């Protein structure tokens, strides 16, 4: 009898092993397993950068909207550290023309945090990027903090690929110190872009 107990336990364990390999271990398939821990996503997006407002307002400003709608593009990588939850990084570039005929170039590099869910074939994400950005205007520049917050929806078009769109709110705090602290500004804009996801 004493020998039978370990044997029974081993049998039960062996019988339970396939459960660890199942996607529906908690009743979810995590978008066909693509949103499961250990999965990865590379995304490419391109779209429009819509300037919203710059705070604080400048007493010498004469134009209500000194920036025109521009373009943005990004490349990001995300790794599922838990089911549905990703961390990763993003490289972004954006251009906006100014009313004075110049071009503002913004190039953020950011740490990325995302949450994914959905039912095939449509998947959704919300996320946040935190990092730093290079600003360039007329040959002058600044390195600033950078944050963006938003989400998107994508339709699966093949086992690995999804196509869709996303909307992100960008915040660029341009911090100046000392005698130039009056130049500190907080720029806000909206990224509206189309994107392609590659799951692997």
């Amino acid at each position, binding site marked *: 009898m004493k020998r039978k107990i370990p044997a029974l336990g081993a049998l039960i364990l062996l019988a339970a092993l396939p459960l660890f390999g199942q996607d529906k271990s908690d009743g979810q398939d995590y978008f066909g397993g693509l949103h499961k821990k250990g999965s990865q996503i590379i995304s490419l997006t391109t779209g429009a950068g819509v300037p919203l407002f710059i705070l604080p307002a400048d007493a010498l400003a004469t134009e209500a909207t000194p920036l025109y709608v521009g373009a943005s593009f990004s490349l990001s990588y995300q790794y599922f550290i838990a089911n549905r939850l990703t961390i990763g990084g993003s490289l972004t570039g954006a251009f906006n023309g100014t009313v*004075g005929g110049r071009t503002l170039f913004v190039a953020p590099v950011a740490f990325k945090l995302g949450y994914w869910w959905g039912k095939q074939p449509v998947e959704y994400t919300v996320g946040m990027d935190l990092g730093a950005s290079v600003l360039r205007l*007329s040959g002058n520049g600044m390195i600033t903090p950078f944050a963006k917050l938003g989400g998107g929806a994508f339709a699966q078009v093949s086992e690995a690929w999804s196509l869709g769109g996303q909307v992100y709110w960008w915040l660029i705090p341009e911090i100046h110190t000392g005698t130039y602290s009056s130049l500190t500004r907080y720029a806000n804009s909206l990224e509206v872009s189309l994107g392609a996801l590659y799951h692997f």
Partner: protein
Amino acid sequence: MKTKKSAGLTILLIAATATVLILAACDNSYGVFHEIQTEKAQVGTDTFKNSTVKALGGDGSKYYAVMAKIYARSTVSGSAWSVFPVNNDTDYYCSGFASNEAGTIYVASSDTASTALKGIYTTIDSGANWTRLDNASEFASKIVDVLYYANGKLFVEAHTETDTAATYALYYYDSVSSTFVTAGLSGLDLPLRGLVWGDSAYWAITSSKVYRSGTPGGFTSTEDSTSGTPSSSKTLAGIATDSSGRVLVTTTDGYLYTRASSAWTNKLLATSVVLGVLAELPIDSTPSGYRLMMAKHNTSYGYYEYDATTGALIQGNDSSAIFVPTASSYTTTVYTKPVLAIYYSAAKNTILIGMAAQGTDTYALYSNTYSSAAWSGWTAE
């Protein structure tokens, strides 16, 4: 273990160096979004877009901008620019323009195809009536290049050409004989870059020589040799006079030469910067002081403001610059283009600045008016 530590330290060192370099590339004094907030949309006259304004002037009731033809507008704010007929002719090439700042302008009008002189004309009523000054044969075999007006005299530079060279000569209008006569400069292998009256003499410069004369016809081909004359190794760029009667000459290696009390002095204003045309401008309507505006070319174009009292050379977009209320008023208008002409109307407290704007998709002519105790900044004409 040591190798791992060493690699870690190397990575740390590289990261620290990169951080320092990135931060060093930042300019804490430059507000990117502040600049953008203060930008002004520039909507000027199409004629001046992607073009060149090479000379400017006024006669009290009109402003004149010289391109291939002369364009003019009333000094009334907001007036439109249009082609200025010379002797009732709009099919001409303007080969010279000058004004006496007392209501009279002078124009050398040439044939657009042959460059033959149509005539040197003057008007005292903004073009309503014209008087021809040349007698049709004086410049028959010459090509008129430019007109100058200094100390009550009208000067004409003209050249003759062979297949291999051009030679330049200077003439002035003798109101007694009503003819153009030689000013004493002839056979020059370089064109003049300017002619002014200051420090009790007429001064003319080429890119390499300074000529001086006490009378309009008294120039000689021997260059000025008074104390401190710019050496022949210098390339001269612009010449002007100031409110104290001094003669000012800029060079392409950043020097400003000043002729006062019969002697030249010089000062290196900016190393490795090409200076150009210059003009003295009042800092307000009183005027309570003056600054020199000097065209420059280093990594970009635009101008410097120079305070002769303090010796301070000021970037056009510096926070201490007088002529723009915001840095962007300079960087979005003048900064990227060579400045060719500067004109100030004392009656209207207005500066006009003419530039070479080809290929920039921006304008070649901007104005700036002193009003309500401040300069307005540059606005496309």
